[in-house]
């Protein structure tokens, strides 16, 4: 299977008030297409920092990060933005929908950036709304729907542009267990049906159970890598 992510001895050091904190220490990781992988570990183990580095939202202090074999440390900001737009979908813990855009507009946003034509956008948004069970809510604004529904919209937004990779940071942390399970099922289905790679940062035992690979981080390093 194709490599989606490859990191080589990635390090990230933060300096705050002359104190150097190594958040990630020499992590080398590969994620292949179609994986449903969870990065797990205690708070402060470097999960979120690693996701930031993988997505190009942050730059490593040392080492290299490759997304679809493109070295993120060697390209400019605009190219990184376009790579994120075309290859990565994001699911955030706090949903992070744009409140002034309707459900429909939130989902179509990335496709607008990609220049997908209007008819195709309509078709894809309708299809994904059916898949995530939000049919009929397309004209609502985020504050008008529940937290679980907002996270479904976020999932729809993340996958509708058909990225290679979906990065999900604690996607179920703000949801009750029933909603969490339902969303996890949905993401698992999408993974199986579309082959989109999912990489989670999580504490949630449900996600850990369903993941087909667990990368355990401890003190900024990979402590274990369990493939099931």
């Amino acid at each position, binding site marked *: 299977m194709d490599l989606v992510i490859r990191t080589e001895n990635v390090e990230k050091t933060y300096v705050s008030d002359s104190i150097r904190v190594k958040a990630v220490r020499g992590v080398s990781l590969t994620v292949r297409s179609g994986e449903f992988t969870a990065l797990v570990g205690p708070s402060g183990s470097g999960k979120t920092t690693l996701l930031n580095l993988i*997505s190009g939202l942050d730059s490593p202090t040392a080492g290299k990060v490759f997304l679809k074999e493109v070295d993120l440390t060697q390209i400019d900001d*605009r190219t990184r933005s376009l790579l994120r737009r075309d290859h990565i979908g994001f699911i955030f813990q706090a949903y*992070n929908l*744009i409140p002034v855009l309707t459900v429909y507009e939130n989902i179509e946003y990335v496709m607008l*950036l990609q220049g997908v034509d209007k008819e195709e956008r309509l078709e894809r948004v309708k299809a994904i709304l059916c898949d995530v069970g939000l049919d009929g809510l397309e004209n609502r604004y985020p504050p008008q729907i529940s937290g679980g529904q907002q996270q479904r919209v976020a999932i729809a937004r993340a996958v509708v542009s058909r990225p290679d990779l979906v990065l999900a940071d604690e996607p179920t942390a703000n949801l009750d267990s029933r909603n969490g399970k339902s969303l996890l099922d949905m993401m698992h289905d999408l993974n199986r049906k579309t082959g989109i790679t999912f990489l989670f940062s999580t504490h949630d035992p449900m996600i850990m159970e369903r993941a087909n690979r667990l990368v355990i981080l401890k003190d900024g390093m990979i402590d274990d890598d369990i493939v099931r």
Partner: protein
Amino acid sequence: MFELRLAWRNIWRNKKRTLIAGTAIGIGLAGLIFVDGFMDGMMLNLKESATRTWMGDGQIHAIGYRETLDSKLTIPEAGKWKSRLERMPQVKALSPRIVLSGMANSAYENRPVSLCGVDPQLERDVSEIDENIISGKYLQKDRIGVVIGDILAERLEVGLGDRIVLTVTREKTGELIQELFTVSGLFHTGVREIDRNFVIAPLSKVQSMYGGGEKINEIALQLDPSLSREEIRDFWSSFPREVIDAAGWKDLLPQMRTVMGMKGISMAVMSVVIFGVVLFGIINVMFMSLFERLFEFGVLRALGTTRARIRKLVIMESFCLGSIAVILGSFLAVVLLLIFSWTGIDYRGLDFGGTTFARLLYPAVRLRPFIWYSLGVWVVTGLIGLYPARYAARLNIKDAMKKSL
């Protein structure tokens, strides 16, 4: 288009703030448009007061007359000039005059006056003396009646039907000559200089007193009002300067030219002040709005929005705010202009720039200031938007989103 829709919705997130900022900028814009209309109206009023009351759009004199006001400097070959002017299509009306310095004596008082001999019929088409008669009748040709200003009448303590003696110097002999006239009408132009000093009599009568035959020292002109500035300029420059002194009202009243020049300076200063307010108002609103949404900008960037698109979005928000201000400001300006165009502003009797306001002042209602000042607000808001736009585009995505990824 999508950015515009998003920008429009973003600025309405906080309706109160947007309306307050839009109204504040709009009031500034309305002020600019109104003052511009007021100044234009004032200039037009001063020009009309100066030209319609007595002076005309311009005058023809002998060389040197304007500098010395020597009544002996009469227009050479006045008949020929009159005929030539009558044939010129730019000339709507003309009035030959003889203006002499003299004394007016009543039974009680005596005053220095300007005795103006005019053709009563021709003068009607050039000045508004006939329209400003407040008592009695306008001049009748070949009658010995005179019309005088109401202030002069008060000072001479005369009224309608009273007699006054006018004394002038004859041209050739230099001897003083006196004639008895009956006050047949009183006028009030609102221009103190005229109401206080002018005695207007039939041209032939004054010429006969002066003893110079049909000599005149002034031809006042009304030009075709449809003439453009360039056509008017060309008209006045068509006269041979070495032979005759032909001058438009701007040259006859050089102080008015200065006053008009002040309009440009005043508006420039006001524009700087108002646009300064616009500048800081919009920067303040845009940054308040931006800091409330740092997280969202982080999300947009994370989703793949380029810095250029973020800049575009913020500039459009600024532009939308400017548009609201333009709509509110233009509406307010229309209301103000309509009110004062209806009521007028009463500055009558006030001297300004060497001229007296003789009529109610109405602000000029023109499309041009609406277009130019609105464009100014749009340009300024667009340019101002660059600063917060740059800030938003350069946000560190991770820091902006530090609650999550």
